[in-house]
């Protein structure tokens, strides 16, 4: 199928040609992203967006396709969480206003960069945001894993200190059972929206921020974040669709793998410890950050900001692809390994119980 040409100020953007190989890669990318998303709780886009970029999809089209993909997925997920009482609608409504402002800002910035610096400039901007955020997050999680047990303080500590900051108006959220300043909610909403509009996902910052900064229970944070994802996904995807950036073929190919992976990943969380979840998260996010770091010299060369020998940029480009897919594949293999180990132990325990008559 031929790629579609989209007219945009300053550049004619061409969507990726879909060959059977590309289609398979997209479905595989969706499966890996979906499984990691189901297992880690949010994210998946930090694999899918760079993955699409490595397949030749322009960064802005990858982000907008991912937003449209996330939108449909969030509706299904938020409905289930709402039934379980995990959505704080009041918090959601307060955050959504600022979230949409953040999305608007991100879409405006992305469009402006694409129009002035072209595809390479847009890719560079998205990659730099990815590297800074993902490497910081990966280091934070690794520090949390390897910190001695006795030095670990409850996550409520920071939240309690922050909730004691009394900047009116203070609002009480019943489902989350917290009383915090509207300004903090606004700040987190805006940051989540900006991230969602810039890299296609904001949940991997929004959920930890709600837990660690506002002191909201994990399940309520995850449910409310999915509720917010409907609005950030809809708003971002709609804005990008109005500019002709959403490729429906890519969205549908992602769904082929992601909805299967999502269910398997979510199930696997019942079979592992919290430490194992954090370890997979740190490995995948860290390798994704390294991958985007490898891709930066090529974008700098394309923009003529810095010059690198062609051999080196080509090598780094291959290294970026290998690291990205390698990290995602490693994460998926770790999850499958945990599932197999759990099933085997479960079977052995069942056999033992049967043989001892308990």
């Amino acid at each position, binding site marked *: 199928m031929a790629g579609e040409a989209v007219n945009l100020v300053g550049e004619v953007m061409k969507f990726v040609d879909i060959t059977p190989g590309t289609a398979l890669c997209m479905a595989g990318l969706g499966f890996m992203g979906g499984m990691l998303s189901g297992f880690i709780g949010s994210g998946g886009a930090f694999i899918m967006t760079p993955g699409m970029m490595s397949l030749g999809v322009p960064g802005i089209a990858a982000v907008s396709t991912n937003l449209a993909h996330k939108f*449909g997925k969030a509706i299904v997920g938020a409905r289930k969480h709402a039934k379980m009482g995990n959505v704080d609608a009041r918090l959601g409504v307060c955050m959504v206003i600022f979230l949409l402002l953040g999305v608007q800002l991100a879409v405006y910035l992305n469009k402006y960069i694409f129009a002035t610096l072209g595809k390479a400039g847009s890719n560079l901007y998205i990659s730099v945001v990815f590297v800074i955020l993902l490497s910081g997050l990966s280091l934070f999680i690794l520090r949390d894993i390897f910190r001695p047990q006795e030095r670990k303080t409850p996550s409520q500590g920071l939240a309690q200190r922050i909730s004691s900051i009394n900047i009116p108006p203070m609002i009480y959220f019943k489902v989350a059972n917290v009383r915090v300043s509207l300004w903090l909610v606004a700040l987190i909403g805006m940051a989540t929206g900006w991230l969602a509009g810039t890299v296609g996902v904001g949940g991997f910052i929004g959920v930890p921020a709600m837990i660690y900064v506002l002191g909201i229970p994990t399940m309520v944070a995850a449910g409310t974040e999915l509720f917010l994802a409907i609005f950030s996904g809809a708003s971002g995807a709609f804005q990008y669709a109005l500019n002709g950036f959403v490729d*429906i073929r890519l969205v549908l190919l992602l769904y082929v793998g992601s909805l299967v992976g999502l269910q398997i990943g979510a199930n696997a969380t019942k079979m592992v410890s919290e430490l194992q979840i954090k370890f997979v998260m740190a490995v995948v996010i860290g390798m994704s950050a390294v991958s985007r770091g490898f891709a930066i010299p090529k974008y700098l060369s394309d923009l003529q900001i810095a010059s690198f020998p062609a051999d080196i940029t080509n090598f780094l480009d291959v290294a970026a692809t290998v690291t990205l897919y390698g990290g995602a594949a490693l994460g998926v293999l770790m999850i499958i390994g945990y599932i197999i180990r759990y099933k085997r132990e479960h079977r052995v325990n069942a056999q033992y119980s049967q043989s001892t008559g308990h």
Partner: protein
Amino acid sequence: MSGKTKPSLWQTLLFLLLAIGAYLVIFFNIEQLNQFYLSKAILPAVCLLGTVICIAFLYGSAISNLLSLVGLESDH
């Protein structure tokens, strides 16, 4: 794993067939559909998001039911 009732085979097959049908219709008419979806107007953008919701619902329900039938149900 949970006490929920399993979906019927017919329901699963119905969702699966509808999802496959929707995929085939979209991919066989992608040139015309993209001409409409990429025309940068409000109605095509709304229709594009509507298509995404429909596919997510049909395919998501089919996969969820299928995994429930093979004993891999999820609350996600």
